[in-house]
């Protein structure tokens, strides 16, 4: 029975080893953050995922940032001035800022970084800041941006990846490989990355705001399964996790070792309706705008929120959430009205149940939403045929108009333009519904030229009158952004974009 002896020995060894590896609570100079996905390439010009932005928040500072009220505040910049005609933006820079390689973060570096975003092959930033015609260095701490036409969302773009400045020296040397070891001007410098395992960054000693940075190292660990991510936090293997499940909120609340910050997503969950993208659309929602209105009225957004999210999401009916300064209170989130929905269907000439090919990405939460919607809209005369489709496939189907309704989530942008323009303006890349209206286009473009919030809000009000009646998206709710961290971690502030700002974080007692 030598085999059995071996087995026993192995089991004993396993026991000894488990005892020898306790979770250490003593060391507190490393912050371990659990991410919901593995980030893509860490090059500010080429990054394209939300999760990547979470990591950038510690490595790459931006010209501007947002505060908890979505106001734009300076970060690497000190101030900005837009000319009266809206065609030039002059930005004053913060003096004495250094990149991680010791190079100065000055006007030359800003020009280099913006030009790189605009011209580099494979840059995803080009469409975001394509309004910039040229960037000029006025003096070492001043840059002047000349625009092709007035574009008020520009500053909001500079609060995100387009506003991240990279070291020109490092970027020139690394070329295409810059994303493997990014060199920026953030509070932490990049140390190491093992794909799908960890990203390690270390406190940058020459950071411009270094007094607020006390934690020595940050480890980002992608853990895709939300249950396992939370288990890691509970067992002390992680100090903070992003995107916890809404259904776990009650359990987190009762745990004295955990703290939770729940915010509202800048984006939305909506249903894109095919209006004129293909014949499939023209035969259903494209027939009459009253069918779209009936569809929206058939949905009980409050009940949906209760059933699927235990009430933790925020019901909505516009491209910004009800807490956003650009929310149009003239159009409050509607109550369900099945009788009126039926009338509208009658008036639109729909006889019998209207069958709808409803494409739903394969994600348990969204599928549950789709099933609830199926039941609700059936009472108003819709027959939703749910077609669960893997995400990459669904994108192509949407692009080619092979759907009638499509459950689509938008992660959201700081500026309302980012949540509306590309979805509703004629022939824009994200306009999967095929909706096209001269009046809406004129308003969308006009909103881009005005800089005052009041003026823009007035334009968006007129736009919402049109789009909520006949536009190609029915908005449902705004997801809760749940960030959970250990009680040992202090100084965490939730911001509307859901990204984790690491400046100001500290461990209790340190």
């Amino acid at each position, binding site marked *: *029975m*030598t*085999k*059995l002896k*071996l*087995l026993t020995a*192995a089991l004993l060894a*396993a026991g000894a*080893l*488990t*005892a*020898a*590896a*306790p*979770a250490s609570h003593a060391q507190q100079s490393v912050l371990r953050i659990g991410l919901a996905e*593995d980030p*893509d*390439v860490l*090059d500010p010009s080429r990054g*394209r995922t939300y999760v990547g932005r979470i990591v950038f928040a510690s490595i790459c500072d931006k010209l501007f940032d947002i505060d908890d009220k979505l106001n734009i505040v300076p970060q690497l910049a000190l101030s900005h001035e837009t000319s009266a005609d809206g065609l030039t933006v002059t930005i004053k820079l913060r003096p004495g800022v250094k990149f991680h390689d010791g190079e100065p973060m000055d006007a030359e570096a800003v020009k280099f970084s913006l030009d790189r975003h605009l011209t580099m*092959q*494979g*840059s*995803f930033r*080009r*469409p*975001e800041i394509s309004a910039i015609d040229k960037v000029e260095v006025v003096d070492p701490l001043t840059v002047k941006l000349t625009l092709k036409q007035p574009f008020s969302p520009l500053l909001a773009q500079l609060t995100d990846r387009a506003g991240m400045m990279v070291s020109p020296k490092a970027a020139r040397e690394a070329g*295409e*490989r810059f*994303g*493997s070891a990014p060199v920026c001007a953030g509070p932490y410098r990049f140390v190491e990355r*093992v*794909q*799908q*395992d960890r990203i390690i960054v270390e406190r940058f000693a020459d950071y411009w705001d270094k007094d607020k940075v006390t934690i020595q190292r940050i480890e980002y*660990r*992608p*853990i*895709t*399964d939300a*249950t*396992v991510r939370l*288990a*890691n936090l*509970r*067992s*002390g*293997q992680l100090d903070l996790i992003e995107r916890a499940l809404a259904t776990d909120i009650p359990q987190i609340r009762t745990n004295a070792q955990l703290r939770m910050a729940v915010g509202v997503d800048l984006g939305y969950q909506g249903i894109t309706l095919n209006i004129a993208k293909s014949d499939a659309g023209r035969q259903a929602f494209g027939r009459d705008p009253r069918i779209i209105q009936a569809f929206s009225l058939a949905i009980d957004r409050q009940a949906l929120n209760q059933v699927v999210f235990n009430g933790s999401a925020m019901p909505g009916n516009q491209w910004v959430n009800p807490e956003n300064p650009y929310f149009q209170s003239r159009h409050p989130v509607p109550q369900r009205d099945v009788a009126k929905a039926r009338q509208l269907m009658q008036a639109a000439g729909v006889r019998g149940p209207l069958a709808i090919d409803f494409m739903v990405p394969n994600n348990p939460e969204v599928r549950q939403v789709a099933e609830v919607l199926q039941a609700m809209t059936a009472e108003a005369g819709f027959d939703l045929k749910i077609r669960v489709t*893997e*995400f*990459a*496939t669904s*994108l*192509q189907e949407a*692009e080619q108009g092979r759907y009638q309704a499509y459950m689509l989530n*938008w*992660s959201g942008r700081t500026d309302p333009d980012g949540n509306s323009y*590309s979805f509703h303006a004629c022939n824009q*890349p*994200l306009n999967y519904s095929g909706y096209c209206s001269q009046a809406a286009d004129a308003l969308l473009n006009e909103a881009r030229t005005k800089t005052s919030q009041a003026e823009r809000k007035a334009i968006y009000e007129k736009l919402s009158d049109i789009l909520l009646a006949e536009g190609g998206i029915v908005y449902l709710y705004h997801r809760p952004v749940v960030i959970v961290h250990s009680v040992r971690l202090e100084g965490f502030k939730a911001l509307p974009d859901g990204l984790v700002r690491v400046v100001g974080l500290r461990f209790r007692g340190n």
Partner: protein
Amino acid sequence: MFTLIARRLIQLIPTIFFVSVMIFLLQQLLPGDPALVMAGEEKDPAVIEQIRQRYRLDQPLPVQYLAWIGGVLRGDLGESMRLAEPVSTLVAQKLPVTVQLAIMAMIFTLGIGIPAGIISAVKKDTAWDYVVNVVALWGISTPNFWLGIMLIFLFSVQLGWLPASGYVSPFEDFWASMAATIMPAFVLGNSFAGVIMRHTRAAMLQVMESDYVRTARAKGLDSRTVILKHALRNALTPVITLGALEFGTLLSGAVLTEQIFSIPGFGKLIVDAVFNRDYAVVQGVVLITATTYIVLNLLADIGYILANPRLRS
């Protein structure tokens, strides 16, 4: 013997070529446009166009294939669209992880499966046999993701003995590495131990009835020698084959288990690549695992010949 091995090695070339064509073509059958997936949320048409050009997606299939296979022959597996890293770098990062996990899982599989099979065969129709069979059935039928999550809750959340997930290289810190991989290895090994147990049991039962075992007993040998020296050796042949194939499967990555324990191995790499239509990564990883599998098969055959003199002629 050598001519046999040489012949098998030559046969490898068309097999691997065929595999490479299949990988390439099957992937094209996947619906979804990689450029659309890669174009980020904004899906700017100019960006999409650049992606198509850069990764040759706008060229005919044969051209794409030749460009890829030409690179492979020069040792260049291409570049990941999503991560902008060479595929060979990714493979070099993941392969040791997967190999370590596979070896540890095999230790669990064989360490549990073979002794359990022997016990159940020798103590046929006793309480021992029933218990072992029930446990084996449980092992086979327990889903990996469920067992994984349960183990995490018990050993990481409740008891706090083991890290819930992640990976540490054994060259960095041996014990931390063992602590990080023992649960996933057990989950993987456990699911297959039942199969090994059933095969060991069946083979043992058959062998125990045979004449030479009766002769051995008649010679007056004690039952331990009869079982372990005479019976088991012959009974192990099918188990070796199964084990080698299973090892090959483990080397291609254990998708669910790696996902649950966040082990950065082949399984996770390939799943992410498929969902993101990261063609170069899918092709590279599948080609490497397929080649490994074929080579392992060859090694198993050679091992057979070495172990069984009757096959040598």
